[in-house]
Structure formats: C-alpha cells, structure tokens
C-alpha cells in the first residue's frame, strides 16, 4: 500500500505537477488539494484583455474529465491547515487527515496588503478568479478606478479598464512605474502607451490617507492631491504563502527555502512555484523567488520528476511576459545581473535591451513591441543566457545579425 503523492495548492504549479506525475508514468494515488472552489486555472488572463469581455470565463489547466481520466483526485474548497511530518500526514480544514509518501507545497503567493488604516469594501486586491469577477463588475464607462501600485498586474488591469471606458488613475510611490525588474527605457514605452490611452499616472507620490465609505474611496496623496474612485485596486506586489511550511518547521528564506532539486530540509517534502526560493544556477546559485507563470510550470514538472526520484537540478532561465494594449513585453533572465546594455531595434518600433555582465556574459534580455515582435529574439537570447555566452555587443546591436547564428557559434 502506498499513500502516494499529495500536492497542496491547486494552482498553475500544483496542477502541472499532478499532470506531470501521470505523464511520467506514476500510477500510485495523486491528490491535489486546493482552497479555491475552482479547477486549477491560469491567472495571467485575470488582469488582461480577457477581463474586458462581458463574461470572463475561467481558463482551466485541466478539466474534470481529464482529472478523472488521469485518476487525479482534486479536493477543492479545502485548506491544508497543518503538516505532521513525523506521521506523514496533512491535516485538512474539513477535519480529515491525508497521508502522503511525498508532499509538494505549491501554495503560491498572495497580494501584499497595504499597511494603512481606512481600507474598506471598495479597496480590493487581485489574485483569484473570484477577485477578478468582483473587479469586473466595476469596470465600465461610468466608473472611476484607482490603481495603487504601478506594477504589472495594476497596469494590465488599467489597460483592460480603459478598454471598457473606465476613468483610470495609477498611483505609484516610486519615481517611475515598473521599478522592479524592468529597465527605465522600456517602462517609458509602457508609461507613454498608458497616457496615450488616457490613463493618468502619478509617480513619486505616497499615500497619506485612505477613506472608504463603502460607495467610494478617497485617496489623499502626500503631495496634496485627492483621488476619488469607485474602486481602488491595490497591486503593490505579492508575498509567498508560507504559513503551513513555517509551522511545520521548514526553513523560510524569502519563501519556502528549497535546494536546486526543489527539496526542503525534509526529504519527503518539496516546494515549487511562487511560494519557494531556490538557487538559480545560471547566476551561480543566487537565491531567488520568482512570481512567474512559466517558472510555476517548469518547477511543477521538475518537482514531479524529483518526487519520483530523478534527482535533477533546476537549470531554467527565468522568463516573464506582460500584455498591455497591443504591446507585449518579454524578459528573459534577471536584468539586475547586468552592468551594461546594448540595444537592438527591430521593425515596428520594437526593441530589445541586452544586459551584459562585467565580463561580457549575456545575463538578461528585455524586449517590448507590438504583438509578438520581440518573441523570437527574446527566446534566442534566453538560450544564449543558458549557454553563458559572451556574444559580441556589435552583433547583438545589429538587427541584420541573426541571433540564431550567434547560438551556433
């Protein structure tokens, strides 16, 4: 008798891990526990164009039929509340105990709360499909939306809200939007796109006070401005969901700390996706935590392999994208590893910034342009980064030199 594999968190990472266990031929019990009432689903559409449709639908990672066909037991609307590591048991909020051979924590992240008094029912966060539906109800030409925080989720939502005619103000305390992880040159393109679409962006001004009377929110900025909105969406980053792991005595270090094989200090317990911090091989083992969709997929699949004993190490290069209006941004690698940049201009105003380390190694590439204009080059850059290549800056900067040819070199 085997207790099988238990996965806590039925999101991108947990869902992919469950499917991967079956793809790998594992035929013991697989149980996926999630506290949301839905099938595992994709979050990226929740802030994007899809939100502008009349009735947004959930984009499931696997249907009930597929889960049944693959004998994946999905327990929804139930939270895992404790782990008994000695007994190999997970305690669930419905009072039951779930035994495991191997356990994967894929608990994700949750919006960072704005630490201020005065927030009320018209101040909301966006993480789940239910959050998105609640926000959608306020997106119309009659509404004023304040977005607190000029990060990706807020800006994407601003674009969707404009599509529906809402009046949108973005409030960012930093001197510019997208301070974290996005080069200023690219943030400027996004900033200008929003202004051209009629979004008001206020940077470099902190919030002094918030008052929410249940019908509208009044946000007083330190600089003296008062923003009044029907809804304030707060998007000031996310924090890893670590409570369960911390209480079980697992090491926490900006997330559930795992090794390159996604193992925690307990050989039976793995963690993956937004909730974990891990050593990134491509930057010499620098410990990072990523909040990125492809990472959640890759780590879900890697965790599945290692739960079955593969003993593999994470080797991927981080990759992220964002869509706003007709523009797509893609970033591979972490640009803060770079010391200098080389710009390559592409057709239609698209461009890519290559980030080079001191020794000339390509460490990241950030690109922006209409549609999928930057996709190929960003993907090729990712392969160059993985190879730890040191391409000649002149070659990177010249649109006529094909990146594919540098890869062969």
């Amino acid at each position, binding site marked *: 008798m085997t207790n099988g594999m238990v996965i806590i968190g039925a999101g991108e990472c947990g869902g992919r891990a469950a499917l991967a266990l079956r793809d790998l031929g594992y035929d013991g019990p697989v149980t996926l526990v999630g506290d949301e009432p839905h099938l595992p689903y994709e979050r990226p559409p929740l802030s994007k164009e899809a939100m502008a449709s009349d009735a947004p639908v959930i984009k499931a990672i696997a249907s009930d039929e597929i889960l049944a066909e693959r004998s994946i037991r999905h327990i929804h609307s139930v939270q895992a509340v404790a782990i008994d590591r000695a007994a190999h048991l997970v305690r669930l909020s419905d009072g039951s105990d779930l035994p495991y051979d191997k356990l994967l924590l894929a608990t994700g992240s949750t919006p960072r709360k704005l630490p201020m008094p005065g927030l009320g029912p018209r101040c909301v966060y966006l993480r789940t499909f239910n959050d998105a539906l609640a926000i959608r109800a306020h997106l119309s030409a009659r509404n004023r939306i304040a977005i607190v925080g000029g990060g990706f989720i807020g800006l994407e939502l601003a674009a969707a809200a404009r599509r529906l005619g809402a009046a949108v103000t973005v409030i960012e305390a930093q001197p510019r939007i997208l301070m974290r992880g996005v080069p200023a040159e690219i943030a400027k393109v996004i900033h200008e796109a929003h202004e051209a679409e009629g979004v008001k962006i206020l940077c470099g001004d902190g919030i002094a006070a918030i008052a929410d009377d249940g019908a509208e929110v009044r946000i007083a900025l330190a600089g003296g401005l008062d923003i009044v909105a029907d809804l304030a969406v707060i998007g000031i980053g996310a924090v890893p969901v670590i409570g369960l792991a911390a209480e079980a005595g697992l090491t926490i270090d900006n997330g559930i700390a795992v090794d390159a094989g996604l193992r925690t200090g307990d050989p039976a317990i793995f963690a993956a996706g937004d909730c974990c911090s891990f050593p990134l091989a491509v930057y010499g083992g620098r410990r990072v935590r990523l909040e990125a969709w492809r990472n959640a997929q890759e780590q879900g699949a890697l965790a599945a392999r290692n739960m079955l004993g593969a003993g593999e190490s994470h080797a991927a290069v981080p990759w992220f994208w964002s869509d706003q209006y007709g523009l797509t941004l893609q970033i591979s690698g972490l640009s803060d590893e770079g010391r200098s940049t080389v710009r390559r201009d592409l057709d239609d105003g698209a461009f890519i910034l290559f980030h080079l380390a001191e020794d000339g190694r390509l460490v990241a590439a950030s690109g922006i342009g209409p*549609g999928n204009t930057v996709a*190929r080059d960003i993907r090729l850059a990712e392969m160059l980064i993985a190879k730890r290549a040191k391409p000649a800056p002149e070659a990177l900067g010249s649109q006529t030199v094909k990146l594919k040819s540098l890869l062969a070199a």
Partner: protein
Amino acid sequence: MSDWVEACDAEDIDEEDVMRFDHEGRTFAIYRSPDDEYFATDGLCTHEKVHLADGLVMDDIIECPKHNGRFNYKTGAARGAPVCVNLRTYPVKLDAGKILIQIG
C-alpha cells in the same frame, strides 16, 4: 483530392524557419525543416489564437511566440505545457520551386 493551393516559393522560407500563409479567411504556417523538407499546419496556436509563424523553429519543433507552447510541426503533436491540443497538419508538395498545400 484536388484543393492543392500554391502558398509560396520554396526559397521564401529559410531552412529551420516558418512562414505565415493566409488563404480564403484561413491561416496556415508553413515550415522548412533543417533537413530541407516542407510541412504545413494550422496557423494559430491551440492555447490562445496566436500566429505560430512569429515563433521559433528548432529541429522539428515550433515554439509559440506567446507562451512558449511547443508542437512537433511534422505531426502536429502538442509537446508540453501550456498546450495540450494538437495542431492540424496538411500535406505539402513541391512543384517547380513552388510550395503547394492541400487544405481540404
């Protein structure tokens, strides 16, 4: 077995590359493999409707430009997250330097 349509010149596509071909309201992707064979599939990714011709061809794989979903363009088989639905493929033939595809 008629409906062969001329898509482009064989030389229009580089080796290990892909080109978009639109015909009567439909869109296709035509590939030239590293070993110099030609293939055709539906033009749009099965994850979200994105033109695969903006993606990257590596050996017998086309990678979607949007979220890196992968397909084997010779068979249409989906090859990993986030794509799970296969691509439809179409027969291709070369005739006097032209690429023809059978779009039945």
